[in-house]
């Protein structure tokens, strides 16, 4: 029987890369944190099909994880030459530039990724971070709002998406809206240090030093992504002082003096 449907499946079978199964395996292993095994599977995949774009993209991701940004850039360029519409490769290409502080290059790459898939909240978020770095705060805020909208649509709101928006609103002096964003981040990830720290910052700006101090003390007990102990101690020095507890303020100053100065965010 040679129906049109059968012909379609035959064509599809022919199009499946011989490196695909090994790539799928590598991807799973990488996600599971088994990096050595993932590398081995990825090598096998690319040996079977050196032009397999998803495998090349995964290769670049591994290279970025190893801080080999130039090599990753070259791998992604090869992937994008093979498939100029590979959205994830465009995103990673942008991220590669972003992580190297090369905002001039990151911008068009993220834009391209977003054009190919406007529904990806991560792309909107990183494009927002890039334009904010370049001084376009209003555009950044629109992108943060869009990233959040997309995540809400998927019922998968992430504190990492809420915090950049909350921080920018704080810088803009929109304290109430900033507080709403950050409180939602705290609600989404109650054990996330960064969210509690930012909430303490906004509370201190609003003049509620007591609440800021308590929020800061809570942050100090939690794990975070970027916020250091030193940053929290610095906030607590000011919060406790403003709350009228000079003793606790001094304690945090003493601890901070023994720590390294924050390296930044």
């Amino acid at each position: 029987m040679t129906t049109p449907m059968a012909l379609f499946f035959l064509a599809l079978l022919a199009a499946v890369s011989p490196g695909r199964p090994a790539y799928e395996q590598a991807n799973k292993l990488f996600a599971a944190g088994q990096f050595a095994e993932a590398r081995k599977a990825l090598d096998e995949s690319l040996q079977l099909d050196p032009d397999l774009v998803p495998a090349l993209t995964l290769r670049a991701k591994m290279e970025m994880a190893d801080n080999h940004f130039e090599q990753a850039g070259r791998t992604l360029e090869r992937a994008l030459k093979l498939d100029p519409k590979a959205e994830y490769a465009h995103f990673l290409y942008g991220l590669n530039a972003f992580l190297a502080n090369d905002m001039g290059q990151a911008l068009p790459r993220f834009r391209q990724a977003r054009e190919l898939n406007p529904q990806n909240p991560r792309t909107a978020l990183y494009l927002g971070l890039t334009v904010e770095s370049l001084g376009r705060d209003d555009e950044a805020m629109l992108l943060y709002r869009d990233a959040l909208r997309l995540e809400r649509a998927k019922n998968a709101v992430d504190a990492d998406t809420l915090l950049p928006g909350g921080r920018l609103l704080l810088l803009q002096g929109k304290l109430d809206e900033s507080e709403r964003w950050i409180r939602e981040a705290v609600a989404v990830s109650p054990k996330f240090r960064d969210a509690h720290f930012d909430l303490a910052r906004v509370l201190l700006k609003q003049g509620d030093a007591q609440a800021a101090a308590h929020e800061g003390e809570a942050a100090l007990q939690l794990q975070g992504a970027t916020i250091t102990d030193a940053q929290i101690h610095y906030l607590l020095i000011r919060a406790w002082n403003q709350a009228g507890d000079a003793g606790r303020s001094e304690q945090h100053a003493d601890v901070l003096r023994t720590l390294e100065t924050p390296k930044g965010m």
Partner: protein
Amino acid sequence: MRPDINWDLLYRLAIVSILSAALFVAAAGSALAPPPIRFAEVAAKSGLNFTLKNAAAGQFHQIELTGGGVAVLDYNNDGCADIFFTNGAAIPSLRKTSPEFSNRLFRNNCDGTFTDVTTQAGVAGTGYSMGAAVGDFDNDGFPDLFVAGVHGNTLYRNLGNGRFEDVTAKLHSAGPADAWSVSAGWLDYDNDGWLDLFVSNYVVWDAATEPRCGSEERQFYCHPRAYTGQHGQLFHNNHDGTFTDVSERSGIAKHIGKGMGVAFADIDGDGFTDIFVANDSVRGFLFHNLGDGTFREIGLEAGVALREDGYAVAGMGADLRDYDNDGKPDLVVSGIINDSFLLFHNPAKGLQFDDTAQRTGLLLGTRQFTGWSLGMYDFDNDGYKDIFFGLSHLAELDQYLGRSSELPNHVFRNIEGKKFEDVSATAGPDFQRAAMHRGVAFADFDNDGRVDAVVSVLNGPAKLFLNRTDTKSHWLAVKLRGVHANRQGLGAKVHVHLADGRDLYNHSTTAVGYASSSEPLVRFGLGPSAIQWLELSWPGGATQRVDHPAADRILEIKEVSAK
């Protein structure tokens, strides 16, 4: 009995009243609308021909990034502010192997032109120079000059005959021997009537062992964290032309930073001058002068050590000035792109400063800038000090930003001590020109009562911005002559009470911005008002009052009080 109301008349009166109110608002608005702060750049036509050379040759040596200090000094006491520029040297020798690396002194001819007098003055220098600080350390009435540099500083004594003598050996520095000094400033920290010297040191640097950063394909300057920081130094004036290094004894040496700009003021009104050091990517230091020859570092407690979120900005320039006329000096600090510049308000009580960068508009307004030197001066003489920032990104950053590293300078107008508004766009066409600006020093070079600025440019011609603000506002410059206090009166505080009831405050310091040194005169913009009285507090606490001094002039005040 009901009065007979003339509704027509009431209606007309109401209309007239509304119109009058509108006219009044319009008139008041136009009277209050300040003239735009404007500058004209005149360096080339005034003969101020200087190019700062950093000897960059693709090797990304950290020392290439800094430097560019500018100092203002009236070295010949003719009443016209002269200009000294620091310059680089060959790398790695750190020698001034050709005249293009010479430091340069330009005499102000008091006619709008300058003459290069470097050779006659003997201040061409030898090493890789960074910053400069002016102060009359021997109280002879002629301003002396300290030049900070990489692995070598120079102290020049002004002989009063147009020449300077190298008296570096008399500093008796206890090290560090490999100090990379960026900025310095003169202050009388113990109020003994003689100027002492504070030197801000950056990091340990050696061309031979310098780390390489970036990638093999694209090298870039290393982050400061790749280098070990150094402590600052304090030199006590022994009153005989020599100094004693009191860095350890005073407590200064305990604090390892990555020092850039320094600023001095009596932050708590206790009569002793305090020190702020802007550190690059580590927390800033506020050295509280305890009055017994020692200092306590209180940057963390005072809330000026870090940005509001605890992030250590790349601190560059600093100035301690009262921006809201409440009588207490506030603090402004410049940083690198995406740091935002810092602004801290000195509180009425206690010593915990309030971070006002966001509230005043300076935070978002400066987020895209990289600032070097700066100064808080009243450029439109309206009674509120504005801020001038010398700007440019790090060299070679353009490839990462996707736009030029060169930036135009920016000036922010102070709106009644509450907001800072970026008014650069209306500051004239010369002001819009981007360049690799570095050091900035402030003085009234043409003695017209408006504060001007001289700016060094990395590998480009220096700029002289004459203030051309079309203002009718009055001004006063106070020139001090200490007798018991140090001769220049550095550290003196001046309080001006205006006839319209306003109070203005300022103090005398030459340590302003980054690597630079400005005029010692204490300046005031008065707006439309006359001065009712002026009160002066000399270092040491003696006070003097002048009633109804005339405005629009330089008022010389000699210390008369007994010690």
